[in-house]
């Protein structure tokens, strides 16, 4: 059983309520059996119709109450499941924001999205089914058993003996099926993924001239998948089979045993009939729990994974805000011994970084792939906290860059800016939803978006992003820049914004960007050396350390790490730390 089940709000109350309802339901089941038996016997004995009918109506009342209580139980658990799932969803979404971009990438953004929507929904189904089923299993058989013991000891003994056998078989077969599945899991997964894999690689297959022949492979693999699935199911279905088998065999055994004792006159017909009617009811809760076992597994798993995400350490701890004035020509940022260690991997990505910037400056950050350029941008822009070090703005110590007063001042443009599903205007005004159309058009003009807007049938109101029109890499950058421009925020972060663009687009974007970077504090991480000409100050990062800093001219004169990096990129000399590192 799930420990977390008791921790949710109202879970104890719900469990108690459902438990009480189940007790009443069990009583209704017994009354129902009692009066159905009585009614049948009355008819059998050819007695007065009105007597039979009154028994039947008591039966029907009990029957209706029983199912009404079932309905009530469903309502109560549904309400609890819905509230709990919704609560969990809220926590999950909040957590996603607290985690920031890097841990999300680690979990996989697709996984996060699936967990938050399908995962939560499966979890709700699990709560909804599991609670009433589980309690019914605990209560109903006991109630029936008490009644049966009270009327007929021997049948009670049979009932009580069969149940443990049933449960042991259930657990055993569950374990066997799981082990078999685990053992073949890799193979199984490969077979089941083969189809999607083939579809995703269809263009590649086509280019290799292999796409026509591949249909046979699909058929073959699907059949292999079928055979291995059936092999697993043979075991998996055995658990349901054994439940069915024992319960239905016990019913048979009980009825034969009842018959024999009736012949010998050791028993009342009515008692025998009632026990016969109650026998299936005794086993039903366990059978239902067994049948729903697989249906609820997904939800239980999802719940586990959600808790796993919720328990991950925050990268963006909420620290007390320190009021900061807006960055201006006189502002100063001083960073001392800034270090960032990713706790889970124990990897130091930034190692004692020291630098300071004053006023409006363009700071270039360069280094090999994996040297720590993006990590530095992530820390400075507050997507993640830092492990140790001292950061002062205008001489005032701040605990992290995640504080709101810093966040309010910055914009960030990555290699692939995200385009939200919405209109062009909504995307540009994303930070500033109250911007007027003139302001939006002004930003669009400055970022060279006007030709695009004129070409779109819907103009500013054309849908872009998911489900809308696709944009080219250059257009995405322009939208992101327009977005940034509209905010009038004084600090800008760029993380490799142009490397993926074709050279002509890169040229155009650069021409357009340079004026926008005036009178701003800019941090610009890139591999593209041409940007360094336009920087006021350059930080050279190598393996997490700041190995050189200065104006581009100074660094060129120095003939150190900066010059070596340039040479390496041009293929003239081998950089000593190149061979180990490949890509970002």
């Amino acid at each position, binding site marked *: 059983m799930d420990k977390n089940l008791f921790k949710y709000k109202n879970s104890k109350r719900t469990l108690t309520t459902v438990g009480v309802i189940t007790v009443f339901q069990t009583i209704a089941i017994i009354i129902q059996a009692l009066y*159905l038996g009585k009614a*049948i016997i009355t*008819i059998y004995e*050819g007695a007065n119709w009105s007597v*039979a009918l009154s028994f*039947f109506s008591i039966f*029907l009342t009990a029957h209706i109450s029983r*199912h009404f209580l079932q*309905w009530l139980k*469903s309502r109560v658990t*549904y309400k609890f499941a*819905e509230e709990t799932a919704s609560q969990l969803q809220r926590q999950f979404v909040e957590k*996603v*924001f607290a985690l920031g971009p890097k841990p*999300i990438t680690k979990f996989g953004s697709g996984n996060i*999205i699936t967990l938050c929507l399908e995962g939560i929904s499966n979890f709700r189904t699990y709560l*909804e089914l599991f609670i009433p089923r589980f309690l019914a299993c605990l209560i109903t058989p006991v109630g029936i058993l008490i009644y049966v013991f009270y009327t007929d000891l021997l049948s009670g003994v049979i009932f009580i003996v069969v149940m443990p056998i049933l449960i042991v078989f259930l657990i055993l077969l569950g374990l066997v099926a799981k082990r078999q599945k685990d053992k073949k899991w890799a193979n199984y997964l490969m077979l089941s993924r083969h*189809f999607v894999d083939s579809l*995703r*690689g*269809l*263009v590649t297959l*086509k280019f290799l*001239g292999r796409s026509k022949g591949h249909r046979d492979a*699909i*058929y073959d693999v*699907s059949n292999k998948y*079928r055979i291995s*699935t*059936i092999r697993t*199911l043979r075991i998996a279905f055995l658990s*349901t089979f*054994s439940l*069915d088998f024992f319960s*239905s*065999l016990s*019913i*048979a055994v009980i*009825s*034969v045993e*009842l*018959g*024999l004792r009736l012949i010998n006159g050791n028993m009342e017909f009515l008692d*025998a009939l009632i026990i016969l009617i109650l026998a299936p009811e005794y086993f039903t809760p366990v059978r239902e729990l067994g049948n729903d076992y697989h249906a609820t597994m997904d939800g239980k798993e999802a719940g586990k994974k959600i808790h796993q995400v919720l328990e991950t350490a925050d990268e963006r701890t909420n620290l007390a805000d320190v009021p900061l004035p807006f960055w201006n020509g006189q502002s100063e940022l001083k960073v001392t011994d800034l270090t960032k260690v990713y706790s889970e991997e124990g990897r130091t990505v930034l190692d004692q970084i020291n630098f300071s910037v004053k006023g409006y400056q363009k700071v270039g950050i360069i280094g*090999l792939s994996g040297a720590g350029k993006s990590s530095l941008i992530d820390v400075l822009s507050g*997507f993640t906290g830092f492990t140790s070090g001292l950061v002062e703005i205008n001489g005032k110590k701040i605990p992290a860059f995640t504080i*709101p007063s810093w966040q309010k001042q910055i914009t960030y443009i990555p290699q692939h800016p995200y385009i939200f599903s919405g209109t062009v205007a909504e995307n540009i005004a994303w930070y500033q939803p109250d911007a007027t159309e003139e302001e939006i058009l002004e930003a669009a003009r400055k970022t060279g978006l006007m030709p695009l807007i004129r070409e779109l049938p819907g103009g500013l109101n054309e849908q872009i992003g*998911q489900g809308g029109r696709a944009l080219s890499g250059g257009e995405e950058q322009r939208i992101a820049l327009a977005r940034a421009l509209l905010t009038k925020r004084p600090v800008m972060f760029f993380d490799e914004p142009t*490397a*993926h663009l*074709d*050279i002509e687009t*890169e040229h155009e974007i650069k021409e357009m960007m340079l004026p926008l970077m005036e009178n701003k504090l800019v941090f610009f991480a890139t591999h*593209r050396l*041409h940007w360094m*000409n336009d920087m006021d100050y350059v930080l050279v990062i190598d393996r997490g350390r700041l190995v050189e800093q200065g104006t581009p001219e100074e660094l*060129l004169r120095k003939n150190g790490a900066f010059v070596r990096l*340039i040479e390496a990129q041009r*293929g003239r000399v081998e950089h000593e730390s190149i061979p180990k590192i*490949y890509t970002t």
Partner: protein
Amino acid sequence: MKAFQKYILPNLKKYRWIMFFAIFLGFLTFLAASMLTFTAGYLITRAAERPYNILMLYVPIVLVRAFGIARPTVHYIERLIGHNTVLKILADMRVKLYDALESQALFIRSRFQTGDIVGTLADDIEHLQDVYIRTIFPTVVALFLFLFMVISLAVFEPLFALWIALCLIIIIVVYPLISLYMLKKHQIAVKEKRNKLYRMFTDAVLGISDWIISGKKDHFLSKFMKESSAADKFEKKLAHWNHSRSFQLQVLSGIILIFVGIWAGTEAAKGDIAPAFIAAFTLATLPILEGMVPVSTAVEKIPAYEESLDRIENIEQYVVKEPEKQPATLGPKPEIIIDHVTYYYDKKDRPALNNIHLNIQPGEKIALLGKSGAGKSTLLNLLIGAISPTSGTIRIGGKAPKDYGENIFDVVSILNQKPYLFATTVENNIRLGNPSASREEVEEVIRKVKLDQYIHSLPYGLNTQMEESGQRFSGGERQRVALARILLKDTPIVILDEPTVGLDPITERKLLETIFEALEGKTLILITHHLMKLEQMDQIIFLDRGEISMHGTHEELMRTDERYRKLYELDTGKY
């Protein structure tokens, strides 16, 4: 409907006997369950009559045990057969979907821009197996049970059988239809709400940086939770309807049981049946009704299938049957002549390519550059015969690319920007280029792409799974694996479509060096976004809005073209 006819109907025909068998077993399961209580009821009543000889009860005793064992056994076999059949059908449906997608592989991206269409379709096919297991099988089983119950009652009393038939119709026809009608709207609403939530949350997760910086977290959270609870409201309605429906159906079952009990009593009073059957008939009613109640749940799933079928239908509409032609084979000289080629996607728009004239000799190295939308992909599609020029001609080795049919890929290979590497071993991935290649040939190509040392350093060497940890191969290495595949394919012409996007400059340079070395002697068309290594090309072509804007060698362009000089300086970052 076309998709239904293509994907569902033929399977119903093809597997009709085995499906019938599975359904029959399903019917038997419920029959055995009700016969178990029937005989048990009879047995007890007879026993209570205390017959003189216990042998009188011999038959019911055996039957009770037999039905007791038969029910779980038949159920077990039925489930296995049912699943086996459905998985067979799944294999058939997959092949059909594959065929539909294969014929338009090169256009899927441009035709269906929205999200992960391929993944969704695969899910749809998976989902359609439920048509059989969860809808058709239980419904038909219920119909059989209905017929069985009505006919067996009719043997005794046709009028009563008619009355029970009417009651049962409420369960197997009226409720399902009402459910279908009432719930369809809600189901669609739930679906829409959930899609909206999905879009919202995807925007939040993928655009997380912007959300964090903008400080709009709380705004998002409250909006998202509001939408989420709106979706919950509809789901709640569905759930409540389900709860109420099962309650009502249970009450109805109870009433039907009373009818049967009273009827059995009157029959016994008339002497048509032995009194011992009263308990038997009454008790057998509920187990048999249990097989009919699920029809509502089975039928209410139909709208969900419709949605999947609609999506498949949307794909199917583009499938065109190309007449089978004898594909041409390449002559001795694979020269490419593009003669005044113009191509329009849409006559109303400007041409995607306008009057392009090019001559590429065997062994030449061509660089093709241009902004997005300049016409590079159109030219590529023309070269492999996926589309034909609106005017002008294009010839490879003297024949139009289209005439080669599938053989075009023995003439031209393509390394695209994100070559797909399949979830299998490195060797299998490379062998896709030529399945009959010897181990030596595979070793040779990995040497040529300079992956031999790395691959041999891995514990499983060439048998390493491509996707095992997801991180084993970096972007540059993945391109090299794909390049090895192309080398094994050994075609005279190779097109490289932006192979270095997303790589850092050092990796980019090394990859390009490997490419040039390994493909020496072949015609090479390199679509590229940077100017790195263009010094080694025989022709450099810039496309702009469908026209050639610059054309020449590196030296020529450096000498004569101011714009090229500027771009070159930018690319190398003059220092």
